[in-house]
């Protein structure tokens, strides 16, 4: 295990890094720039966008840890994409990098979103580097998509693509008629990115324990044996996709550990071992598309379920259905449930200060999407309600394309719940409106 405070690199170092990267991009542009205007088949391609993205909390509340800002997000962002293919098309690289000003934190930063090399030969596709991987069949409900998510981005109205966080690793895809396979190895662990307590009101079970002076994060180690491995085996039967999944790695949602239950001074976030086995089917049914998915989350670090700092093993199931209801109007519904194993042990070992999770938790979701004005206006609504947790999220959104290049997004997130510790209940004071103006090239 590797211990770290999670603090980011110092300002100067980061600025040097950004400078270095920018110079590289400028160099590439200078070298390849002239080719961009030509129609050479293999010319290097430069694309990306510039956007302003803002989100404001409209409840009038602001988290105690911060300076009273109503803004969850205030940023300007440049994204650049570079692609190049070898002449025979078998090899290529792709770089997608963001440079942004975070107005809430008052910092400038960059992030390599993706950066990989592809190689294709016969039945095999190899991709090595920083990449985004999406598996599973759910719409914002994840069972076999074991790859990192950025919930903070989603809850503060950033575009959907930012819900998925990249991993650094290698992926091999082998395509055979009988059974195809995707194999992924990720040497360095990447946790889920959660709403930040300096921007969001969040529930803290230790809020009454004023004795905590140190908060640490204990990430899985960077030992070869800690490499995360994921596999998807799939086959299309007609147009029906049948997939099997397996994953060996770690929970991306942290557990919390304290050095003493009665008088804690140190709080440590931990990412216990996790193995997942699952399957999914997507196909046509009743004039629409149906999907079912299931998975078993084997909590290797707490097989008995009596360690309150580590999640118990769980069964997870999802069923979804979407259909075109009318002209350019699509509706999607989902039902998700998870069942905890060893619930008795969980109940008996859970410290009294901790909120208790139900044995069976469930979520229902509804998505409506309507396209108007020759698909230049997209109206959508996404709602999640949990009958077990009695909490909800409502996300209406409108995207208007002023031209092929310029689009404007306006949306809102409304959170609520009966209890202050559930996923959406704890976000109740964070109802927000967000806007995004993007120029894409």
């Amino acid at each position: 295990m590797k211990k770290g405070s999670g603090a980011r690199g110092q300002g100067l170092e980061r600025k040097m890094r950004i400078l270095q990267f920018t110079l590289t991009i400028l160099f590439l542009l200078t070298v390849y720039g002239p080719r961009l205007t030509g129609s050479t088949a293999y010319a290097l391609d430069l694309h990306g966008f510039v956007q302003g993205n803002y989100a404001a909390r409209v409840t009038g509340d602001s988290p105690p840890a911060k300076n009273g800002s109503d803004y969850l997000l205030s940023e300007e962002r440049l994204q650049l994409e570079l692609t190049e293919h070898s002449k025979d098309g078998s090899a290529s690289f792709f770089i997608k990098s963001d440079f942004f000003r975070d107005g809430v934190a008052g910092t400038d930063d960059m992030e390599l979103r993706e950066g990989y090399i592809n190689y294709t030969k016969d039945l095999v596709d190899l991709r090595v580097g920083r990449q985004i991987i999406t598996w599973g069949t759910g719409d914002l409900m994840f069972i076999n998509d074991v790859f990192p998510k950025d919930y903070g981005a989603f809850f503060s109205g950033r575009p959907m693509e930012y819900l998925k966080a990249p991993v650094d690793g290698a992926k091999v895809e082998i395509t055979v008629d009988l059974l195809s396979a995707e194999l992924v190895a990720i040497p360095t662990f990447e946790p889920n990115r959660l709403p930040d307590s300096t921007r969001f009101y969040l529930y803290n079970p230790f809020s009454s324990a004023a004795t905590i002076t140190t908060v640490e994060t204990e990430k899985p180690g960077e030992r070869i044996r800690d490499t995360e491995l994921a596999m998807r085996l799939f086959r299309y039967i007609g147009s029906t996709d049948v997939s099997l999944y397996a994953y060996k790695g770690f929970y991306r949602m942290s557990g919390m550990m304290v050095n003493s239950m009665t008088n804690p001074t140190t709080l440590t976030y931990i990412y216990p071992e996790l193995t997942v086995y699952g399957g999914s089917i997507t196909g046509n049914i009743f004039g629409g598309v149906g999907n079912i998915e299931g998975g078993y989350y084997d909590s290797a670090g707490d097989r008995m379920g009596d360690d309150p700092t580590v999640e118990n093993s769980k069964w997870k199931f999802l069923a979804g259905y979407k259909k075109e209801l009318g002209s350019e109007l699509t509706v999607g519904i989902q039902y998700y449930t998870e069942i905890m194993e060893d619930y008795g042990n969980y109940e008996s070992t859970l410290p009294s200060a901790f909120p208790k999770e139900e044995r069976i938790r469930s979520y229902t979701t509804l998505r409506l999407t309507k396209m108007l004005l020759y698909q230049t206006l997209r109206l959508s609504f996404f709602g999640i309600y949990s009958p077990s947790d009695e909490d909800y999220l409502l996300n209406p959104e409108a995207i208007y394309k002023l031209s092929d290049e310029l689009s404007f997004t306006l949306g809102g997130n409304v959170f609520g719940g009966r209890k202050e510790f559930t996923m959406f209940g704890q976000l109740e004071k964070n109802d927000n409106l967000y806007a995004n103006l993007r120029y894409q090239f």
Partner: protein
Amino acid sequence: MKSIIFYLLCIPYLILPLTASAETAEEAIKRAQAAFLYAGYDMKARVVMKLIAKDGKERMREMTMLRKDFEEGGDQKYFIYFYQPADVRNMSFMVWKYPKKDDDRWIFIPALNMVRKIAASDRRSSFVGSDFTYEDISGRDIEDDNHSFGKEEKVGERDCLVIKSVPKDEKGTDYSYKLSWIDKERSLPLKEEYYSKKGDIEKVFSADEVKELSGIFTITKRTMKNIANGHRTEVSFEKTEYNVKIEDGLFTERALKNPPKRWIE
């Protein structure tokens, strides 16, 4: 009496040439679809669509369209890769088309590296925001309409059959009937008019340029115009090639995620 027998003997000779040319309206539409949508065993084209609003404001769609026929007049598969506009760049789109049941459609979203199956029951919905519907791109099931001949007319220099097609199920369409002008010799539809349920002209299709490519007459420029709101879509098929031997493997999840370079450049 003698004359009656003579006439009776003559009847077959009178009927024969008639039956040889007496194609039904349904057969003529079938012939038109074969020429228009099933030309060659497969096809590759660079397609540029201009979506033009009444005020002249233009939007652009540029894609490579690959089609393979699995049965003449029957099942087909389409693979479409987008270059423009920027927000759909690198997206690929796949349709498995069956005349008698709902299509299968998948889309690949590069930013999420995700393949999704799309619910696709409405073939009258717009293709990529244009005036063309999915049905206009890949064809309407011939058995969904009652077809009848109208008078013959010229479109430009070409002699055409005019066919009226009335949907059997009115609920499934946004128009009440369609008139098609089919080139008698080349079988291509040179003009189509869609009439609203009130009887007004609603949409007009026109073949603006026809070229002979590898011996196949091809509509290389076409327009669909919405008369009611003045919006129109101009489509130009560039670099159209037939019988390029597209492999079945192109119509798979692998190709959606990682389109083979040789097909999309």
